[in-house]
């Protein structure tokens, strides 16, 4: 009996000790005191300094359930200037209460001027080193100032999240496949040139428009591609799922892409390197402005296929010319295919591959395959 009571006392003592010991987490931080960074924008400032704009998500004060309807601004942009990202971060804590929490950062936008001036690898060192910021963060280049892209007139919108969503969905061939920090890391470390999505601002709203070309040797911005050239690039790489191609003809016929399969085959003969590009695209006719047509007939379909092929061919040709003659860089992964199929030849040429690529012949072959044409098959006038 007595023993039992002693046991009960001990259990009581241990339980009440637990109350003291297990009250909270060691590194407890109330969520209201933390600034969640949704995105960041980097710009060049006077005197070789850089500025960083951090976009904080503003939590709703009342009624969490009514998230979409408050009409308030959902974000707050804090901008500071410094010579690197770390001091800028500390500087912002002088202006706004709460510590910076980067684990939910979705995007980084780099201004054009800064990207032209500074080696990208140094610029984003902090993003790789910091353990808060994730490798899945997407990278963009802004046309002009980057901080403009993180603003929006529309209520109930966090611009960073919108940009992130558009990039992840990638609904059109007129934009690039998303580039995350991790993807960029392997490009920069292997000294290969690459492209990043460009953002422009029109009347205060951001738009995906064109691509920024980063040269692998210097990791600096050297030029842009327009939306049409991106279409060509996406056909070469096959890095796109949906989009459309206009057929070459007086009246537009639009071909909706359902699948792109592209294959780059390198050929090495002694010192000579050449590539053959084979692209086959499946899709349907989405819109036809011709006055009369009969798509029920197979010959008409073949005719349209030919016309679309011509257009696709010119898109690809144009992009390749742009890469070889104008920009002088390989951004479509030709070098990578050479590395895979002819590793020894690659060892010889990888040092100045971009230079070498300028004069490397590329032959193309594009196949369009129309699977169907929707609800209208014939029109007579």
């Amino acid at each position: 009996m007595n023993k039992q009571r002693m046991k009960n006392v001990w259990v009581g003592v241990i339980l009440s000790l637990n109350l003291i010991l297990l009250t909270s987490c060691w590194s407890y931080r109330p969520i209201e005191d933390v600034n969640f960074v949704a995105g960041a924008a980097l710009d060049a400032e006077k005197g070789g300094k850089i500025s960083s704009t951090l976009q904080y998500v503003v939590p709703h004060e009342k009624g969490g359930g009514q998230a979409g309807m408050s009409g308030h601004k959902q974000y707050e942009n804090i901008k500071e200037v410094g010579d690197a990202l770390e001091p800028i971060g500390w500087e912002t804590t002088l202006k706004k209460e709460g510590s910076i929490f980067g684990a939910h950062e979705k995007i980084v936008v780099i201004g054009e001027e800064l990207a032209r001036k500074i080696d990208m690898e140094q610029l984003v060192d902090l993003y790789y080193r910091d353990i808060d910021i994730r490798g899945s963060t997407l990278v963009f280049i802004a046309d002009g100032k980057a901080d403009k892209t993180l603003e929006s007139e529309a209520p109930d919108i966090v611009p960073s999240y919108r940009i992130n969503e558009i990039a992840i969905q990638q609904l059109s061939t007129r934009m690039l496949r998303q580039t995350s920090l991790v993807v960029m890391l392997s490009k920069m470390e292997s000294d290969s040139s690459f492209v990043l999505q460009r953002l422009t601002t029109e009347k205060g709203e951001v738009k995906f428009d064109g691509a920024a070309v980063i040269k692998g040797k210097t990791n600096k911005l050297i030029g842009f591609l327009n939306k049409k050239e991106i279409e060509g690039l996406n056909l070469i790489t096959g890095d796109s799922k949906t989009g459309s191609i206009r057929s070459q003809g007086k009246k537009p016929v639009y071909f909706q892409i359902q699948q792109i399969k592209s294959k780059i085959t390198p050929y090495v003969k002694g010192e000579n390197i050449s590539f053959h590009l084979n692209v086959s695209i499946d899709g349907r006719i989405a819109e036809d402005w011709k006055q009369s047509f009969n798509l029920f007939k197979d010959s008409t379909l073949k005719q349209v296929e030919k016309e679309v092929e011509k257009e696709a061919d010119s898109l690809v040709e144009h992009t390749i010319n742009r890469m070889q003659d104008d920009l002088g860089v390989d951004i479509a992964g030709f070098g990578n295919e050479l590395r895979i199929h002819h590793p020894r030849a690659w060892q010889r040429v990888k040092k100045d591959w971009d230079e070498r690529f300028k004069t490397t012949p590329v032959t193309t072959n594009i196949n369009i395959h129309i699977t169907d044409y929707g609800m209208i098959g014939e029109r007579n006038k």
Partner: protein
Amino acid sequence: MTKQKFDQITTPQTVVIISNFILGIGILTLPRTVTEKVKTPDGWITIILGGITALLVAIIMVKLAERFPGKSIFQYSNEITGKVIGSVVSLCIIIYYLTLSSFELRAMSETTRLFLLQGTPNWAIILPFIWIGLYLITGGINPIARMFEIVFPITILFFLLVMFLGIKVFDINNLRPVMGMGVMPVMKGLTTTSLSFVGFEIILIIYMYMKEPTRALKATVIGLSISLVFYCVTFIMVIGALSIDGAVTQTWPVLTFIRSFEISGLFVERFDSLLLVIWIMQLFTTFAVCYYAAALGLSHIFNKNINLFIYGLAPLIYIVSMMPRNINEMFQLGSVIGNFTLYFFSCVPVLLLLISLMRGKQS
């Protein structure tokens, strides 16, 4: 003999102990350490070859242990070579396990502090670990084996889940070409990958506990193969996502890989904490076995009760684990242990086996 209870473990338990022990902190850095040497995406072939090398050594060890059923290496090394040399060998093994357990502890604490508990001091992570380890191993080999049986399926389930979710960022082109530069690069990393299988030598100690000692070889082979699969999957996924150029720049490539994707639509988007949690369990298993092996060795040498040494070693392990002043010294400690293992465990068991064969020693 010592007074401790002579427990027995089943063959599956032996398998689980071996593979849990092999999987330690090494896997988090493996893609980097291998690629640094190999410099082509062929590291996975090197890992397989390393596994085979480890297997050959393991066979020798099992053959050695089979000659002395019911005894640990600490006891039969004395019988084979005499008291003096035998004690030196045993002491080397004890110091090795002691340092290894401290190293695993420190590495665990470093990764935890970096990724999970940023404000927590090292001692606050390490001390509970030692206490819980102490509590576990005072029960002897059987509780250890049973705990491993619980940890092991959880590890497999979550590990494979997390790795295959990463398929989103996986690009097969990063792993091509296969042997593009010939066989030479593959061979260069062989030492590193063989070392990553260190841990199977525990069979020299747990052999005496096996219920069916005839199946020791089978158990070792299966245990090694499980770790081999883990290593290969990790390497392939990490290099596929980061490419060889990216992987060599990262301190913890596996953690970088886990952090490079998000899965929307599932209950959780991010899996880094999940992986770290199972990894802490893996490190705990490695730590506990090391700790136990060191204490057991001392008790066999001095013929005293093991509990005495279990409590005695705890502060020592703590001190050694706090010795590296920064992360580079920690990695250095790791490579010192690695080099020691390479020379010690590839030579000593062979020598012991040869001597025992020549002198016809057997019990």
